[in-house]
């Protein structure tokens, strides 16, 4: 204000010299001085309402030069609202009805802005006459102006806040408001974030370089006026930036920006947090005036409201977003749960449907029966066609079982014991179904049965299936019995056959042999040598046939009778057989090599037959070699653990291996090696009866190897 008043004084002096003398009569020195030096504006108007002259204070208030103002209608200097009042007053003065008037009016400056002034207007003469003029004295009502500007600014700022305008715009408006109250002052608002850093909220009047330097700086014990104020949580006043130690860090940039003094006050949120600072700067070194501080107090609240509302809004928005997010998550969770429930219900329904199982419950107090969907299907009913009472349920039961069901349910209701029954129901279509039901009783605190519930299984198909299965079993058993009978008969026939072979085939043989013998012995005279020879051959043939019959019977016996399984020491058995064989051929040179510790589970009698045949064959087929080497052992083969008998005898052609195990088939001439062709067939039959395999490998004159398994019974 000093600066402005200083300039005004200078200008006033200059203007006074320029033009006042032309209007005011000369010699009126005191009046002139009064006119020129008046701290309030004085305008002299002609009776036509046009400006004749004005003093410096008036010119300054209005922002016009005297030249510009001179000749303007006075009404043009007033606000539109006040022009009628002014016109009426003017008319009254000119008309002589009033000598003077006082008004508070808004005047219009050259730049269009309005100001309040208390105007006093009066005629210079007793009456309006030629040469008379009107003197208007305007005392600027600056308090009211500032108050109004303040109110206006506050209202605008509050409107912005209420509208939720961008915070920076609102803060700039507040800063402008502060500045409007004190010409020459520069206002700045900084925001302080949670990390204790400042951000420019409003600082349009400050140089951009300064704002940039401040942006993002931390608050602290020596951080200029604002940073320190935020740090200390109290107002910090710096009358001289150039010397204040608080400004060390920002001194150069502040001085470069032309800032000389500064004071800053912290802005608090309602919870006590520092959310910003409000600062005033001047280009001159000075202390804050009481008015400055008062202004700061007023603006501070506005800024606090603006910032906090914005923070609250942000927090609210965040909360809302969070809430929305949580609502969305919860909704999703609920929807998923609902889906799962639905899926579970579908599954249960499907399971019940697949199982032909329904569930039910009977609220005994209200006599309401609830059925699952599947139970409705089982009964062939719909919720519309079913009465849903116990009586309606009973009505579905086959008449002759109704009482039984009622009695069962009533007993369960009385005893609270669970029940299981099988009852038959009749569908509306007349079809009968068989159901297996169970039920349980829920009891209230007083021990009364209040609810019965359970499941119901449609066992019609199962019953039918069970009946069919029973029939099938019976049929199977009958067929097994039949088959067994047939087998027994076949067995009997076979036995009868063997018996017959054993008994009846021998009789004719005996007759042939006997009579041949008698012929040879007692009727020799009637026979020549050829005849005798033939009779001898007849006898040899009968012997041979007798032997064949024996062997055939032996073979057939192998397939009959039970296996007497026990652990057989095959090594020992082979040694015994070898001993016998050696004894039967004392002239032969035979090396037996019998592995130790071989055993198997099997029928000892039959296994002896196996070894007798295989080792016997080995002895037989090495008969034409000077020395025989016969091995009995065990080895691992692709069929598993196998025993083997190996010789170095005549062997056989593998081309005929198929014939080897057929009964009565022989690979050698009778003249070469005697035999009936029954031995290997018997061996194979025994091995098969033990569940094993037998096979042979050989080359002519390279010996033969017979291997056999015993169906996993070998050791």
């Amino acid at each position: 204000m000093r600066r402005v008043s200083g300039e005004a004084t200078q200008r006033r002096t200059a203007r006074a010299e320029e033009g006042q003398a032309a209007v005011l009569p000369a010699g009126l020195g005191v009046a002139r001085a009064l006119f020129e030096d008046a701290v309030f504006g004085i305008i002299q108007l002609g009776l036509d309402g046009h400006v004749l002259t004005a003093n410096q204070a008036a010119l300054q208030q209005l922002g016009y030069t005297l030249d510009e103002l001179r000749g303007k209608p006075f009404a043009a200097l007033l606000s539109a609202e006040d022009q009628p009042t002014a016109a009426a007053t003017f008319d009254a003065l000119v008309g002589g009805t009033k000598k003077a008037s006082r008004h508070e009016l808004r005047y219009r400056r050259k730049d269009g802005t309005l100001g309040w002034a208390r105007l006093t207007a009066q005629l210079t003469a007793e009456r309006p006459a030629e040469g008379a003029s009107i003197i208007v004295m305007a005392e600027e009502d600056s308090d009211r102006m500032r108050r109004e500007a303040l109110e206006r600014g506050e209202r605008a700022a509050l409107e912005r806040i209420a509208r939720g305008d961008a915070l920076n715009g609102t803060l700039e408006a507040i800063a402008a408001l502060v500045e409007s109250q004190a010409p020459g002052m520069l206002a700045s608002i900084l925001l302080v974030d949670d990390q204790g850093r400042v951000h420019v909220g409003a600082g349009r009047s400050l140089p951009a370089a300064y704002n940039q330097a401040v942006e993002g700086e931390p608050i602290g014990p020596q951080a200029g006026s604002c940073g320190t104020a935020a740090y200390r949580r109290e107002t910090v006043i710096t009358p001289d930036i150039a010397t204040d130690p608080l400004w060390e860090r920002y001194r150069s940039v502040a001085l470069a920006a032309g800032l000389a003094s500064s004071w800053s006050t912290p802005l608090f949120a309602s919870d006590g947090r520092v959310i910003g600072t409000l600062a005033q700067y001047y280009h001159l070194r000075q202390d804050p005036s009481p008015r400055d501080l008062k202004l700061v107090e007023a603006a501070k609240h506005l800024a606090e409201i603006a910032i906090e509302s914005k923070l609250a809004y942000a927090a609210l928005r965040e909360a809302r977003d969070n809430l929305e997010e949580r609502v969305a998550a919860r909704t999703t969770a609920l929807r998923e749960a609902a889906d799962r429930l639905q899926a579970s219900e579908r599954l249960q329904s499907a399971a019940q449907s697949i199982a032909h199982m329904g569930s039910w419950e009977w609220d005994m107090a209200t006599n309401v029966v609830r059925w699952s969907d599947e139970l409705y299907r089982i009964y062939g009913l719909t919720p519309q066609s079913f009465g849903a009472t116990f009586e309606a349920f009973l009505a579905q039961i086959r008449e002759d079982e109704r009482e039984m069901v009622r009695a069962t349910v009533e007993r369960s209701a009385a005893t609270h014991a669970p029940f299981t029954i099988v009852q038959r129901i009749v569908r509306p279509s007349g079809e009968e179904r068989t159901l297996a039901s169970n039920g349980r009783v829920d009891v209230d605190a007083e021990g009364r049965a209040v609810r019965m519930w359970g499941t119901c299984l449609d066992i019609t198909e199962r019953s039918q299936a069970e009946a069919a299965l029973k029939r099938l079993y019976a049929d199977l058993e009958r067929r097994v019995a039949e088959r067994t009978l047939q087998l027994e008969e076949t067995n009997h026939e076979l036995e009868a056959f063997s018996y017959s072979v054993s008994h009846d085939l021998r009789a004719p043989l005996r007759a042939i042999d006997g009579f041949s013998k008698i012929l040879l012995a007692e009727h020799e005279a009637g026979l020549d040598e050829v005849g005798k020879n033939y009779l001898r051959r007849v006898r040899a043939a009968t012997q041979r046939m007798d032997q064949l019959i024996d062997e055939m019977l032996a073979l057939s016996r192998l397939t009959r009778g039970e296996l007497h399984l026990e652990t057989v020491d095959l090594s020992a058995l082979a040694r015994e057989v070898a001993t016998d064989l050696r004894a039967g051929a004392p002239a032969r040179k035979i090396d037996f090599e019998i592995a130790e510790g071989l055993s198997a589970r099997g029928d000892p009698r039959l296994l002896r037959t196996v070894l007798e045949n295989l080792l016997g064959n080995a002895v037989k087929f090495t008969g034409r070699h000077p020395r025989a080497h016969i091995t009995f052992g065990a080895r691992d083969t692709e069929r598993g653990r196998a025993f083997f008998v190996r010789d170095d005898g005549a062997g056989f052609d593998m081309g005929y291996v198929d014939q080897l195990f057929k009964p009565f088939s022989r690979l050698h001439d009778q003249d070469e090696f005697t035999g009936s062709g029954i031995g290997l067939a018997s061996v194979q039959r025994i091995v098969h009866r033990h569940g094993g395999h037998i096979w042979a490998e050989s080359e002519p004159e390279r010996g033969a190897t017979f291997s056999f398994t015993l169906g996993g019974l070998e050791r």
Partner: protein
Amino acid sequence: MKAGKHRILLVEDNPDDAELALHALRKNDVVSEVLLARDGAAALRLLHGEGSADGTPRQLPDLVLLDLKLPKVPGIEVLRAIRADRRTQLLPVVVLTSSHEDRDLAASYAAGANSYIRKPVDFDAFVTTVRDLGLYWLVLNEAPPAIGGP
């Protein structure tokens, strides 16, 4: 006991076997008489006198050679009937058969056979067997004391 005084009952349906047996027995000087029954029923008539003209029991043989496979009454039934009758229960009975079956052997001994001889196909062996049989049962073996009858 002296040779030539023994009676044998041969129960045999096969005429060839009967002929050969008789032939063999003829060569055997311990046997004085061979009675031949061609079926089981005939054998039992001979032994127990059933169906005979006067109803009086015949003189019992000293040894019965019994085939198992017989018309009308099977050999094993004949044997049981012999053992069931007080008069013949101690009579030596040798089962002479072609059968080599275990069950026949077992059944025969169970029914009370004294011996079980398989008829060899070889006639020479057959002759030897029959001779040995006669020698054993009629000469070497002490017969049980006669029960009943004259």
